[in-house]
């Protein structure tokens, strides 16, 4: 069984690679993590001299895959809640607390099914009307960092809009920035025995003959695997500034002036996280603006600075440090009309190679896509390793989610199974793979859900079982969704 000692390889040590490595190591597999740079974290950490000023990510969503993955492992990362009071909107009339805008967005709190095939702009105009639609499209920039969110798939944008702008209570900042998260994950990986190789840029020739998770950006994965892996992303201008403190400043300014089809987000990171700059006595302001392909760094940054002048008067006077750049495909996949996340490059690339990252076929927002695909890729790599480990070539079958449900239905008391078919293929994801399987058990009630997809449709099977007598079960079934014990 010598093959059982052979490790799973993970290429790329960002959030996706770290999650994949930890997930695989937890299952007892030896893991080697190869990172091209001298430090783990990828886009979640900043430049060498200021790793704590992260390049990209800012917030974690408490109802999302990252928060859930951390909770499941009891990894406690200190987080700070949203600062609604410090929120300002900058529109053509000036900077203000967004009361008027809030009213304009009011119709959008109603639940809707947004179509995959329409643009967000066309659908919001039709559903909510002109001025609401226009504001919604611009605000989409807050979560996509794209220069024209209205041009993307209505379904894609609507999910993001609901989960961020309409659910701002679920937004958290990590105390100490994303470096805290990266350090904690690194520590966890080390404890689990993951071998971490820094300054180790893998090339096509050096790809190991073993189950391998490629957790780099798509462009790098494309080169590494010598195949065309592409998906639309955003082009984003970033400006980071450390400047002398001014207590009067807002915490977040969303610049939605009408010269933009998107929104420029300006965050004072030191507001939710006073320790964001570590020892330095200064304010950290980070701003992002989605820009079209023909916009230069200078132009993009000039537009951002104009927003800063409005929202953070006096910021220019004592700048201690600044960093300006344009990031291409830095914020993950954006889905054009007619596509959903299922159409992106697949996690399973065949030949025991698996993709993870924020632009692959996994559900979620931003880095959640990296987390979900990281878990999915790790599971597939573990399966591949088991397959290789003993007697390659012998026939084998997998326990599909449907079969698993059939087994449980046969053994659990009072079990019943329901099946539904969804032709539009966009079903609420069940587990990290977006398909697959989830089992929950609370207060004597078991609920298992299996989702499978074919080219034509997506099938959802739900099993409910309980050790409770029938009347009690009936009662529980009738409870509104929020109160049901199996809800997380």
């Amino acid at each position, binding site marked *: 069984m010598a093959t059982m000692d052979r490790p799973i390889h993970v290429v790329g040590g960002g959030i996706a690679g770290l999650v994949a490595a930890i997930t695989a190591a937890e299952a007892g597999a030896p893991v080697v993590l190869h990172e091209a740079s001298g430090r783990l974290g990828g886009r979640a950490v900043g430049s060498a001299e200021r790793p704590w000023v992260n390049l990209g990510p800012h917030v974690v969503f408490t109802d999302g895959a990252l928060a859930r993955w951390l909770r499941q492992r009891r990894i406690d990362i200190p987080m700070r809640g949203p600062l609604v009071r410090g929120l300002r909107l900058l529109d053509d009339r000036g900077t203000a607390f967004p009361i008027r805008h809030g009213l304009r967005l009011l119709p959008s709190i109603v639940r809707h099914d947004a179509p995959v095939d329409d643009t967000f702009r066309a659908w919001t105009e039709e559903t909510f009307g002109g001025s609401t639609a226009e504001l919604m499209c611009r605000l989409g920039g807050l979560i996509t960092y794209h220069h024209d969110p209205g041009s993307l798939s209505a379904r894609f944008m609507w999910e993001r809009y609901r989960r961020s702008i309409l659910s701002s209570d679920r937004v958290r900042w990590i105390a100490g920035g994303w470096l805290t998260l990266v350090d904690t994950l690194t520590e966890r990986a080390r404890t689990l025995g993951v071998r971490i190789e820094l300054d180790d840029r893998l090339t096509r020739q050096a790809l190991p003959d073993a189950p391998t998770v490629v957790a780099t950006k798509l462009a790098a994965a494309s080169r590494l695997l010598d195949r065309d892996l592409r998906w639309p992303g955003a082009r984003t201008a970033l400006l980071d500034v450390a400047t002398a403190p001014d207590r009067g400043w807002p915490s977040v300014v969303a610049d939605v002036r009408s010269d933009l089809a998107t929104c420029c987000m300006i965050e004072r990171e030191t507001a939710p996280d006073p320790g964001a700059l570590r020892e330095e006595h200064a304010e950290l302001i980070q701003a992002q603006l989605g820009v079209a392909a023909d916009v230069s760094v200078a132009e993009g940054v000039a537009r951002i600075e104009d927003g800063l002048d409005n929202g953070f008067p006096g910021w220019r006077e004592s700048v201690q440090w600044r960093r300006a750049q344009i990031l291409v495909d830095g914020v993950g996949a954006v889905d054009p009309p007619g596509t959903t996340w299922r159409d992106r490059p697949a996690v399973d690339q065949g030949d025991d190679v698996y993709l993870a990252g924020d632009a692959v076929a996994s559900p979620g927002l931003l880095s959640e896509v990296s987390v979900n695909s990281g878990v999915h890729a790790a599971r597939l790599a573990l399966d591949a390793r088991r397959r290789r480990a003993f007697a390659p070539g012998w*026939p*084998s079958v997998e*326990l599909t989610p449907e079969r698993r449900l059939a087994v449980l239905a046969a053994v659990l008391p009072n079990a019943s199974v329901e099946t539904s078919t969804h032709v539009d293929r966009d079903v609420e994801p069940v587990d990290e793979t977006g398909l697959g399987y989830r089992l929950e058990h609370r207060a004597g009630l078991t609920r298992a859900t299996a989702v499978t997809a074919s080219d034509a449709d997506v099938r959802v099977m739900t099993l409910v079982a309980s050790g409770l007598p029938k009347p009690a079960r009936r009662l529980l079934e009738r409870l509104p969704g929020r109160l049901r014990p199996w809800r997380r």
Partner: protein
Amino acid sequence: MRAAQRGDPLAMDALLTELAPWVGRICSSIALDKGDDAMQETLISVLKNLPTLREPAALRGWVRRIAVRQALRAVTGDRSVPVADVPEAATVPDFETSVDVRETLKKLSPQRRAVLVLRYLEDLSEQEVAEMMGTPEGTVKSGLFRARETFRDQWREA
């Protein structure tokens, strides 16, 4: 394991994850195309009868026995698969070099496949295989020996 015996659904589910790849291989190596049905029946039987298992350490042997039984049942219940033993001269894979184990397994009877699975995949001794299959050890021994010889001859000729 203990929790699964008590009927804890989460523990049962975890046990399924643990057992499935291994059970799947045994079942499909013996039952071939009926492997998934055999696996399903095996897992149901395992979970149902789990409380009767006194010694958790005996789990593997116990599950293996159920898997082999269910796999044989899945194919022998089906007429299209020859139940009678095929001639001894049938090819038997050399598991180091053979590329298509499945094709080769197809040519054998289910019982013979079970013997091969237990000996080569599960690494049981000939005595253990004989015990489990309810055949004399000598039969297992000579069968395996002849099968290997046949295969080697064929290999050389090819």
